[in-house]
């Protein structure tokens, strides 16, 4: 008997089955089931820079849930926690190319980087479409980036997709949209913790053992190990563990504060955590200009949360407030 309790049919078909659901629930999107690419229904939008992203599945609503006006033009879904293959990004790039170039938003994981890189080379050789890739790498849990593959791309990716999407909607050229995306990434830092592991459907058992009285601080979004394991703490103490390393890494004055759920933690706890994060920021002289609370970049059924802070200037705030209409984020329209 399996200990896995999941609402699935066949573990091997989870991604395909979920995409069928996405297509039926969101008729304004167009789903290429063969390539596993989700497009906004009217792609390519003439004259607008196209935005695509993608990565392993299991982080929903990221990325397909952020496809729509004001955000992404297409998202490529890999297998659970496995990077998509270049064919998918090539198809997506061609499918969203409205004649003004295409921005690739890539989370800093070795597999994602290489597959997006190959896709860009194939597109360049094939159609000559101009492609710029922006890598997100905001996870301060990775301390020694000289001797590792570098900081992982986590929470800031959601904000990069929203803000760069708004810049593209203003009709700005590819280089500008890429510069905005880079600015958000450079101004953003994140840190996460897990209360439980997650269970990959194909594996059928939790990725790591976490005793009932312990939590793992400094996790990524795939159940990879964190910085340290500590006894389960209160929300106030947890907020300290997450916010202190972020404030230690970058100077903040006025921020977009994003408290993210990892998939298995209820919203009520995320709000408890947000209150504690806000208290620390106030004590540190940092004001909160905008906020986002909820599960937006998840790790399947993992219980836990992450905090992302982005230092926001007027441009970032204006683009953050711009209209967006996607399954995962929707305002102003």
């Amino acid at each position, binding site marked *: 008997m399996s200990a896995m309790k999941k609402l699935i049919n066949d573990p091997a078909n989870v991604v395909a089955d979920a995409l069928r659901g996405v297509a039926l629930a969101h008729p304004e999107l167009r789903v290429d089931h063969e390539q596993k690419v989700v497009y906004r229904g009217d792609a390519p939008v003439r004259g607008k820079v196209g935005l695509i992203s993608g990565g392993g599945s299991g982080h929903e609503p990221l990325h397909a849930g952020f496809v729509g006006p004001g955000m992404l033009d297409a998202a490529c879904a*890999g*297998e659970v*926690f*496995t*990077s*998509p*293959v*270049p*064919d998918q990004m090539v198809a997506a790039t061609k499918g969203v190319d409205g004649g003004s170039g295409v921005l690739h938003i890539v989370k800093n*994981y*070795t*597999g994602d980087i*290489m*597959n997006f*890189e*190959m896709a860009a080379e194939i597109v360049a050789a094939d159609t000559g479409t101009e492609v710029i890739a922006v890598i997100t790498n905001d996870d301060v849990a*990775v301390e*020694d980036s000289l*001797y*590792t*593959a570098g900081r*992982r791309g986590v929470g800031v990716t959601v904000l990069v997709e929203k803000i760069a999407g708004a810049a593209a909607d203003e009709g700005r050229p590819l280089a500008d949209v890429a510069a905005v995306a880079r600015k958000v990434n450079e101004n953003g830092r994140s840190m996460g913790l897990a209360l439980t592991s997650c269970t990959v459907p194909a*594996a059928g058992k939790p990725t790591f053992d976490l005793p009932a009285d312990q939590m793992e601080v400094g996790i*990524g979004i*795939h159940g*990879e*190990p964190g910085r340290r394991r500590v006894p389960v703490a209160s929300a106030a103490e947890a907020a300290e563990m997450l916010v202190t390393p972020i404030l230690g890494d970058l100077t903040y004055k006025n921020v977009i504060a994003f408290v993210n759920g990892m998939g298995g933690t209820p919203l009520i706890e995320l709000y408890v955590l947000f209150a504690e994060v806000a208290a620390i920021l106030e004590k540190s002289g940092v004001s909160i200009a905008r906020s986002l609370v909820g599960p937006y970049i998840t790790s399947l059924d993992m219980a836990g949360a992450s905090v992302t802070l982005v230092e926001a200037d007027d441009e970032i705030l204006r683009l953050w407030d711009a209209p967006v209409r996607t399954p995962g984020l929707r305002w102003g329209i």
Partner: protein
Amino acid sequence: MADTVGTEALHAWIREFARLIAEHKDLLTELDSAIGDADHGVNLHRGMSAVVEVLAKETPGRPGELLKRTGMTLVSTVGGASGPLYGTAFLRMSAIAGDAETLDGADLARVLRAALDGVVARGKAQAGDKTMYDALAPAVESLEESIAAGQPLGEALDGALRAAEQGRAATIAMVARKGRASYLGERSAGHQDPGATSVTLLVAAAAAALA
């Protein structure tokens, strides 16, 4: 066998590599669960099975075309980091093989050097980073030296295999600096690298099928 190889021999090499990957699938996945994300065996097996199927359906006429088809199929089916790394290696080999109908020992050494250069270009790995580079680089160097010294191809490939095996064993003590294993820092030491293990199978397949 003679000291030149044609499409048929290279096809046998690819099939032998696929067979070795299938045979060692669980070992590769086990090594990868210790320091990575437990999918190296499954992903490479899926890719090489697809390659064998593609090549069986329509066997290309020349070595360069065979290597290209292999690389393209791996890129499209493997995913993760190993898809682009192995895919790039085969595509670079194909570029060196060009339109030639057969390859001699010196050609093969250049072909495998191109594979190594491709892995470096794609993965940015250096010696000692605990990656496939640490097994493939000594194999390529050994092959180049043996061929330059006038050794027959069979002996030269056997020497390359021994060099790969030594390089693979050396990865056990290394601390990973690339890929997901790098996030473990010192905790990655004491484990043999899965990529160094699979690429040693590629050299073993060459020693078995090309000599």
